[in-house]
């Protein structure tokens, strides 16, 4: 028996013994996610137990080194763990921007002190983080951000405004791009800093979207004090950290089309709403578009798999992450338009129990943001033009 096979057997046994039954149910809404943090109220005893047990194993962040709260697993072992969890339908014990975003940044750019201070609480789900990137005048053009960070000798003072800070109203700490120098080119003079959301002068206000309530906030900083030890990476070179994380984020969002696709297939939704006549969807025109979208969806999923497989084989995903992000989000919008077409009058209800409070309509509207957040489709096309096609002036 190879080491990996032994690991698989152990993981399977442990999961069977330790994953509570309630934590093996499909996620039915956002409420089933565990975000952790200072003010977290566990949805159930099972949610709490599951987090504690996984934390104890280091499996909330399996590949992180043990000294930072991880289990020091290899990528191969992590994949086995994921498969074993998927086998029993185990929920993720912890959803966390600390794990997804801050962790990779600190592991690559942080000092040893920063890692030891911040990573273990992330791994344990004790501190919940949010991300402070976009500003009202720095959306697609992120590097033109203006939030001012002044050097006051032993500390910094931050003034400015961020938007699209997800869950900022519920987060404990923020990792934030700020401007420490505005005399050079816009990509220079940006720094990556961390601070507590309870620091005086921080104010986070939720943004209402066209789809209804949202996790996004507008976040205001007025004379916010930031300790110098909480600067990550080189001062004025925070853009390097940001770029690293943006590619990371793009790959996550690009995969969404595929994740959504794991739900009920479009043609089944259409068939149950419209009916089948003579073996064919009762709406012949919609049928053509459903077939086209599902073929694209299948080929797109294969492309995600192909690009990941190529990357594993040594090549970097690079600018192709822009291609996946562009295509996946545009396709997802198309699919939701077709779902709305298929469900007709029923899908248009916004508040009824029957429509689960307009779940489909709200999802449909929410997908419109997919091609805006994490870099607009236009920005992704610019990246492809420049980095892949190498077109002049792109």
């Amino acid at each position, binding site marked *: 028996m190879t080491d990996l096979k032994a690991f698989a057997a152990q993981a399977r046994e442990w999961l069977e013994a330790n994953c509570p039954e309630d934590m093996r149910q499909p996620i039915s809404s956002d409420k089933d996610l565990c975000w952790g943090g200072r003010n977290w109220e566990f949805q159930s005893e099972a949610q709490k137990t599951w987090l504690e047990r996984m934390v104890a194993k280091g499996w909330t962040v399996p590949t992180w080194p043990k000294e930072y709260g991880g289990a020091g697993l290899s990528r191969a072992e992590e994949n086995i763990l994921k498969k074993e969890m998927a086998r029993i339908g185990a929920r993720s014990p912890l959803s966390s921007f600390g794990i997804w975003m801050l962790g990779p940044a600190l592991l690559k750019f942080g000092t040893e002190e920063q890692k030891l201070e911040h990573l273990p609480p992330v791994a344990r789900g004790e501190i919940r983080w949010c991300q402070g990137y976009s500003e009202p005048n720095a959306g697609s053009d992120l590097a033109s951000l203006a939030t001012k960070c002044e050097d006051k000798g032993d500390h910094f003072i931050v003034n400015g405004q961020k938007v699209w800070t997800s869950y900022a109203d519920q987060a404990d700490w923020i990792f934030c791009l700020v401007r420490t120098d505005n005399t050079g080119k816009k990509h220079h003079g940006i720094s990556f800093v961390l601070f507590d959301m309870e620091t005086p002068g921080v104010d986070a206000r939720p943004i209402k979207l*066209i789809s209804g309530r949202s996790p996004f906030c507008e976040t205001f900083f007025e004379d916010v004090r930031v300790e110098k030890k909480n600067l990550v990476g080189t001062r004025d070179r925070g853009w390097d950290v940001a770029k690293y994380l943006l590619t990371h984020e793009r790959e996550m969002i690009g995969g969404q089309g595929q994740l959504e696709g794991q739900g009920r297939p479009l043609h089944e939704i259409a068939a149950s709403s419209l009916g089948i006549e003579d073996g064919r969807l009762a709406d012949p025109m919609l049928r053509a578009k459903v077939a086209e979208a599902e073929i694209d969806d299948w080929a797109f999923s294969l492309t995600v798999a192909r690009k990941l497989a190529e990357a594993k084989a040594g090549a970097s995903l690079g600018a192709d992450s822009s291609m996946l992000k562009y295509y996946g989000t545009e396709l997802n919008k198309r699919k939701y338009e077709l779902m709305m*077409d298929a469900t007709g009058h029923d899908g248009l209800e916004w508040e009824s129990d029957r429509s689960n409070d307009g779940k489909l309509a709200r999802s449909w509207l929410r997908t419109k943001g997919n091609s805006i957040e994490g870099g607009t489709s236009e920005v992704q096309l610019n990246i492809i033009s420049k980095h892949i096609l190498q077109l002049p002036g792109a």
Partner: protein
Amino acid sequence: MGLVLNDDEVMLRDTAEGFFANKSPVTALRKLRDDRDETGFDRALWKEMADMGFAGVVIEEDHGGVDMGFMAAGLIAEQMGRNLSASPFLSTAILAATAIREGGTAEQKAAWLPKIAGGEAIISLALDEGPKHHPAGTSATAEKSGNGFKLNGSKAMVVDGHIADALIVAARTSGEEGDAEGISLFILDPKTKGVFTERTIMVDSRNAARIELDDVEVSGDALLGSLDEGMAVLGKVLNAGRAAVAAELLGAGSQAFESTVTYIKERKQFGTIIGEFQALQHRASHLYSEMEIARSAVMAALTALDDNDSKADLYCAMAKAKLGSVAKLASQEGVQMFGGVGMTDEYDIGLFMKRIRVLQELFGDAHYHMNQFALANKF
């Protein structure tokens, strides 16, 4: 073919433009929504619309209307679309007025048309039952019962149904689901025993209802038009509805488009006004072209109705199909070009996207009308 507005029409359009922009701008819809207004529209506004003659735009003068015809009705609907103005114009002034005018007895006309024109009665058409528009799919039934009828069935997407003073109900008096023949129309009081109305708040914050009919007894007088031949009247009602909805889509799509063009002339990213980016310019110019094509389709459909053109069905199908696609494109491009703020409730573009989604579904979406168009052309 009246593809260019005459002087009277220009005057009416200008009047309607000023009226809705002043009396019922988008902020009015926001207020109705945020106040969770139970009627979902402003009765005072509706009364003013009646005073302007809008409520009686397709009603003969004998019955208190101004009888200006469908092109006029379309010009009004277009301005309502531009401002997302909430009113029972479509349900009452277009659908019900056309139904009663085309199918009503002298008594029914005398009873209802002046009230419609005066803004005193709101009347809803209860036709569709399933998730999609499908008139021949009517399965609600009306059985003979004494001198009258007994109605049973369920109706969905009854625009303004929860506030209606009367309902025009399509029910089957013979034939089977799927037959165009055998459907009859009845006009009845929603307070009749056995009528259950549930308001359904739609994505566009506008009014619709689901209606259950449980052994609803109506007298023989309730029949609107000939027994079993409701489709004759309904065809004209639906043509009118489709053309009016297409006109409202034209207004909503135009406003979405124009506000987007305005926005990209102002918004800066990468040190540049984003409207300078050629990729956006070409998409905007393509959309401009589509909007112009769409406008012609709407004007031709409205004219065909006024002219009693034998191909009015086809004109209306074309217009509804084209506008369903083009207005949708305008709202999609709008949200995308507005970017992040386009996703916020604070900006209006999302409200246009919602309204356009509902309008494109009403009385048949683009797919439905493409199919009808093909069938009418025998392919």
